[in-house]
């Protein structure tokens, strides 16, 4: 394996690692569930993407074959991450999870909980 290849692979691994780390720091630092959702759904996709591309390059450079499994992992990740986030947000709204006081448009949560249009009349919101 050439030096440049090793350099590129290392750079991808480190970059990916940094993004995953930032996602985890986000989980720790952000203050309510909704805001926390943003960190893992986004930061980890790019982080894992970097690691997986690094892995593909490594297999290609060391064995000369192209490994496709990594592409599949990326694909499944991109399909499943938004669904998980959506369901988590939905459940959070149903449990009326506490949120940051400065959150704008908090009234919308009641509408979203009942899956109504935002301009639905007040009587409709009974459960």
């Amino acid at each position, binding site marked *: 394996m050439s030096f440049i290849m090793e350099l590129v692979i290392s750079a991808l691994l480190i970059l990916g690692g940094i993004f995953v780390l930032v996602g985890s720091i986000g989980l720790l630092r952000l203050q*309510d569930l*909704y805001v926390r959702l*943003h960190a893992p759904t986004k*930061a980890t996709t790019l982080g894992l993407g970097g690691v997986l591309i690094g892995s593909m390059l490594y297999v290609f450079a060391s064995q000369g074959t192209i*490994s496709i499994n990594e592409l599949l992992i990326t694909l499944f990740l991109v399909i499943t991450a938004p669904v998980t*986030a*959506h369901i988590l947000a939905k459940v959070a709204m149903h449990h009326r999870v506490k949120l940051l006081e400065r959150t704008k448009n908090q009234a919308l949560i009641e509408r979203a909980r009942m*899956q109504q249009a*935002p301009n639905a009349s007040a009587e409709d919101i009974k459960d």
Partner: protein
Amino acid sequence: MSTLSSRLFPMPFHSALLLVVWLMLNNTLSLGHIILGCVLGFLIPLLCEPLRVKQATIKKPLKAVSYVFVVLKDIIVANIEVALLVVGPMHKIQPGFIAVPLDLTGTLPITVLASTVTMTPGTVSADISTDQKWLYIHVLNMPKDEQEVIDLIKQRYEARVKEIFGC
């Protein structure tokens, strides 16, 4: 003839997809796996056909490919934006909820849009109204003008999804 082949292969696209994914999973092009993949691609659609809900089909595959690249680019931008916000001061973050009116119809196009919204800068889709006309999203850092976010989603993503599915 056409009825027979459509009965044997009720979902030709899915059959091909199953074969390709099977080969990718096993990372091989050997004859045995190709045969096994063909059998799976033949049997699974036959079993699943009765369970299927009719979905919108992709009308413009080329647009779909360019859409994937637009979203990929936005995912990278989103990552960097969120990373900067996360390591920055917490009191600067101004979260909020927004209801986006939808022009799309059909569950598949709306699912694609909602997933895209989640993967792209600063927004997570949270719920959909039962009449499928409103998408509720949570915004990580709300700009002064909420309409900005709505316009961005409608012009950048919804218009493209609409074109792809032709609905």
